[in-house]
């Protein structure tokens, strides 16, 4: 998914670093081998990076400069809600929705290019005050959820699926905004995606709320 951007920009002191929130042993491998990414892909069994950066979904991203400073905190990486308006059997989107989905991706990728070219002078790189204003910070329940998730996934990994599964469910109740925790614990369809009927019920229950939190970026379709 990020291959083209990585190829285009890697000679300019830039790297994509992908982290797979995948607790199931070996789950990431076939997808990664098929994509043959030239960037580093890490496997995060316990969603540690989600805890550190308060991420709740994929694809979410953080922009980090050469000195290790966050210049855009956790946000949806150019995703648009289009899938919610797609035909659920064929995944076909109405034309205008497909266009917005494409525009969201293009806008986000162009913003990344601008940052790589201009650094802190890019209008897309926040200064300290703006970066802090865009942070989403964890609550005590979120901290408890990550502890419960860590313990639950460890127990599942050593064969204690019953107790482990209960702890993962408890984590999801403590942190209902996290699609990553919920989908990791959910059943998979025949494509290997956590997109069975219970997923769509949960999406529909969002109502007017977003699945991918809105990105504060000029030109981003809302």
């Amino acid at each position: 998914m990020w291959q083209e951007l990585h190829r285009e920009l890697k000679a300019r002191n830039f790297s994509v670093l992908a982290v797979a929130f995948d607790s199931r042993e070996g789950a990431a491998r076939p997808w990664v081998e098929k994509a043959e990414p030239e960037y580093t892909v890490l496997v995060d069994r316990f969603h540690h990076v989600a805890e550190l950066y308060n991420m709740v979904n994929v694809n979410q991203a953080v922009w980090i400069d050469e000195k290790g400073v966050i210049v855009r905190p956790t946000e949806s990486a150019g995703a648009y809600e289009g899938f919610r308006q797609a035909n659920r059997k064929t995944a076909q989107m109405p034309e205008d929705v497909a266009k917005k989905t494409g525009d969201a991706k293009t806008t986000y990728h162009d913003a990344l290019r601008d940052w790589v070219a201009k650094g802190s002078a890019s209008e897309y790189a926040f200064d300290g005050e703006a970066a802090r204003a865009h942070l989403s910070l964890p609550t005590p329940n979120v901290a408890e959820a990550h502890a419960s998730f860590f313990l639950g996934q460890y127990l599942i990994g050593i064969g204690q699926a019953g107790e482990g599964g209960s702890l993962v469910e408890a984590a999801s109740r403590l942190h209902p905004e996290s699609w990553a925790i919920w989908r990791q614990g959910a059943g998979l369809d025949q494509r290997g995606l956590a997109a069975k009927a219970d997923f769509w019920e949960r999406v529909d229950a969002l109502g007017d709320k977003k699945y991918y939190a809105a990105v504060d970026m000029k030109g981003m379709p809302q």
Partner: protein
Amino acid sequence: MVTVLIDNKILEVEQGSGAGDQLWISTSEAERIAGISRRPDGFSKDGAILPAPSTNSEDFLRGDEIDLAAVWRKMNKPALSDASGEVWVLGASAGERAAVLQSLQAPDFTLPDLDGRPHSLSDFRGKKVFLVSWASW
């Protein structure tokens, strides 16, 4: 023996036992795995003094062992175990995670690639990094 999950690591602790909501660990092991040191007036971690979990020292001290779960909870950090008391997670508080984010210094982490080789975010220092989450599901 107990297994302690802390800071994304899985640690085996020989001299440790869980009982209910208590995690009894030798003071040397508490220092090794969690950086908790005993002081005459309580405990310290990373140079900061921690108040004792209770005015009654018998509640959290037993010979050379301390109830690490009680010390942990006193810091408002999550401490929970499985039903057997043999596996514990000692988590981070919302406040400490938030403080790191508010510093805007990207928190470092080390994770394996598909071949099990570890990589750290800090290995990329000197480059712009687009850190992006992904999942098979």
